[in-house]
């Protein structure tokens, strides 16, 4: 495990809970957060990895932590690993302070990801989310002042009652802030969320499709690279290195409640129960040994999200048993215009990425035979 170069840390706290979120989270509580931070620090100290290329602190909302808690956590990371190439933290502008920003900078954080979702108050009310544009601008300014210039914003589309114009307005508002990166997510309604419980219906697939296309057109015209299904970067250098490691199916370790890890053919997910996590009880919620077939499918499921070619030569080397079926199905899919395939190079086309779900299912079916 000491070769793993990508680390994810999960902070399961938020100052308020959004209606669509199904990550492990709870309302911020100082005492409980202290315990979780303590556990995380123990895990960080015990982590076998020698060198990290990327570290990503997500949540929940890491910025919900108090300045002291943030400081303790970041210090322990800094003590353990030096020179992390990309060190990202997710923040909610609403609970940021200048001091917290300075603290992030001081401990080596060099990339921020801010959840914005939408700029219309009407939609934020539906989402139970709060990010006032004024605050977002202020926090962005603090980041630049502190010297953190690699900033990504998250927006959502396909929200109940959202119009294409509203979505486009949100995108343009973000672009005026000149971010290095944007992530645009279609709303998915998960069962264990307020939306799921209220049985909110997803928007019409056609409208969602139009919104997505509108975003792609707008951002591409403005010079952003659409390098992954939901991700846009100002230049290739600003692609999220940490997320690329997932899409390239690299090994990673996740610490904190609900965080997942994959090392070699092992994947495990920590308990989603925050109390169990702090008490070290029932530590894992899932643990699987991946079969060759799992590995091949997942490698493609992740890799085809990107606009960069996959090199399939590793497959023929390590899992020659699937070469025939894979070759056959990829040729078929290539006839549909969903990928360019010239062994060992494989890359999805924009059309293929639009129907990636069906694309992968075809591959899965082929490997079953």
């Amino acid at each position, binding site marked *: 495990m000491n070769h793993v170069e990508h680390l*994810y840390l999960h902070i399961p706290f938020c100052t308020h809970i959004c209606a669509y979120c199904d990550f492990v989270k709870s309302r911020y509580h100082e005492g409980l957060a202290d315990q979780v931070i303590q556990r995380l620090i123990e895990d960080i100290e015990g982590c076998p990895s020698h060198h990290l290329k990327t570290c990503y602190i997500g949540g929940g909302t890491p910025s919900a932590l108090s300045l002291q808690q943030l400081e303790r956590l970041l210090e322990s990371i800094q003590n353990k690993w030096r020179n992390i190439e990309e060190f990202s933290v997710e923040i909610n502008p609403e609970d940021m302070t200048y001091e917290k920003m300075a603290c992030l900078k001081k401990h080596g954080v060099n990339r921020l990801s801010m959840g914005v979702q939408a700029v219309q108050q009407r939609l934020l009310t539906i989402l139970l989310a709060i990010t006032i544009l004024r605050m977002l601008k202020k926090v962005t300014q603090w980041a630049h002042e502190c010297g953190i210039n690699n900033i990504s914003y998250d927006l959502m589309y396909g929200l109940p009652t959202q119009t294409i114009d509203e979505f486009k307005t949100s995108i343009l508002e973000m672009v005026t802030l000149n971010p290095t990166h944007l992530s645009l*997510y*279609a*709303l*998915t309604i998960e069962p264990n969320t307020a939306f799921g419980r209220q049985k909110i219906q997803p928007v019409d*697939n*056609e409208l*969602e*499709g*139009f919104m*997505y*296309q509108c975003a792609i057109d707008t951002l591409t015209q403005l010079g952003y690279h659409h390098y992954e*299904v*939901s991700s846009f970067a100002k230049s290739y250098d600003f692609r999220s290195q940490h*997320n690329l490691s*997932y*899409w390239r199916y690299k090994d*990673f370790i*996740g610490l904190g409640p*609900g*965080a*997942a*890890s*994959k090392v070699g053919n092992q*994947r495990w*997910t920590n308990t989603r129960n925050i109390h169990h996590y702090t008490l070290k009880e029932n530590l894992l919620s*899932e643990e*699987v040994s991946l079969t060759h077939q*799992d590995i091949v*499918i*997942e490698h493609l*499921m*992740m890799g085809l*999200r990107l606009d960069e070619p996959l090199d399939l030569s590793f497959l023929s080397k390590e899992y020659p048993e699937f070469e025939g079926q894979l070759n056959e199905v990829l040729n078929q899919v290539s006839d549909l215009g969903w990928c360019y395939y010239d062994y060992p190079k494989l890359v999805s086309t924009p059309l293929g*990425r*639009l*129907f*990636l*779900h*069906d694309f*992968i*299912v075809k591959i*899965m*079916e082929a490997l*079953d035979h």
Partner: protein
Amino acid sequence: MDQSRIRNFSIIAHIDHGKSTLADRILELTQTVASREMMAQILDSLDLERERGITIKLNAVQLQYKARDGEVYTLHLIDTPGHVDFTYEVSRSLAACEGAVLVVDAAQGIEAQTLANVYLALDNDLEIIPVINKVDLPSADPQRVIEAIENTIGLEAKDAPLISAKNGLNIEDVLEAVIKKVPPPRGDINKPLKALVFDSIFDPYRGIIAYIRVVDGSIKIGDKLRFMATQAEYEVVECGVRTPKEVKKQQLVAGEVGWVAAAIKSIKDVRVGDTITHVHRPSLEPLKGYRELNSMVFCGLYPTDTSKYNDLREALEKLNLNDAALKFEAETSVALGFGFRCGFLGLLHMDVVQERIEREYKIPLIATAPSVVYHVYLTDGSMITIDNPSLLPPVQKIQRIEEPFVKATMMVPNEYVGALMELCHKKRGIYEDLVVIDDQRRQLIYQVPLSEIVYDFFDRLKSISRGYASFDYEFIGYVESKLVKMDILLNSESVDALSIIVHRDFAYGRGKVIVEKLKELIPRQQFEIPVQASIGNKVIARSDIKALRKNVLAKCYGGDISRKRKLLEKQKEGKKRMKQVGNVEVPQEAFMAVLSMDE
């Protein structure tokens, strides 16, 4: 055996009134089954029966009971299927008895099936013993139920045992009543053999085992038997009774109920209702009441995976070993490929067969919407029967079409009578009678086309009466109707498996509902799919399934891989249940869409 110490009886009841629970208590009380071995409701042995709380196959159990008069009696308890589809089987097992215990729920009172069963029992000259069950329920009103039994059925019910089968209350009173009131068998052991076949099961080692009631004479091992209706002849290998374990005996004599194994290979030789006699000293007359079973409802069964065609044939053959009422023959559909046209006694029978094939034989199925059998008179004067709508001849060749009608008997609380009558009219029903049962309920009788019953009649009935109405029906005959064939087109191609026969006046409404329902059920695909309903060349309804714009998971990071994989696996499994029709992928449920009648 002394026939005066034998009592043969059945328990009859409306579904859920406690028939099986009472049977369990009787088995416990007579220590036929020790309590600790007792699995709840032991007579219902098929999994499906247990799950659905219904009895499909019959069973007969011999019990020894020491009565209050100090004598030990041999009781044969013959179980009956509790559903309208199996009326004929019920009537045959009742014919094997001299008496019937009529269980009525103390809270719910008389229901449609209670009456239907009572009439069957009366047809067979049975002594009927009313029993009021569930008297321990807070809502129980035994007095009202007793009055209703006396007023509606005309049975003396003052002395009816008041029991709680669940708690074992007053079960002995039921058995005492059976001994006092049910006459002993009056067969003649010296006459030529006459035994009634009321059920059969298939045993892989011993062939078909027939369940019989010996009416006259006796059966011994080695006897040569003849089945009088089928003329099949076999030699008895084993015979005996069930307690409910199988107990072998040297012979069965007049008055007894038991089983016979004779290395019988074909179920076709052993028909329920047939009479067994000896080859060498035959009875001249068979017992009354035998008839051939006719399928009332047909549907096409197709494997979703075409390579499973032979497996499906094998499954049907195996089920057929135990279920003579199941009919099937090979058919092909342009849309669905190779499959079988199957005939059933009714809707429940159809559901049970489908579910057993999917569950026990693990063959995912596509079932087409059920159809009744139409009598189609052609212009050349001939008549053909049509059980598959897609095979209906062109309009210009048809002189007229007749469809089966049933007499539907419904019991309903007063406040729902109006809504129920409205439903019956919508279903082309013809009013026959309205009878007062007591101050709270009415009995409503209509003649209704069976095809309407096969659609959603029962579900509708339940929903408009909030579950309080009960329902039973019997076939009464064929009646001419203005019927037309409606075709469904997907992407401009007619899909034969979706064709239905409808009344001309209802075609527009139904066509509209079907295309809307199909739009809902067929997932969006990469191209737009028009869904149309047509009569002849005329399109009467249309709805379009819009093209899928995108199908990709918005987020997929490290923590999502496992979950998203499962999601994709689910979609993959779902695709297995889809059928490629032309270039459209159609899910299984879509073929039943014609049944959804949210008009």
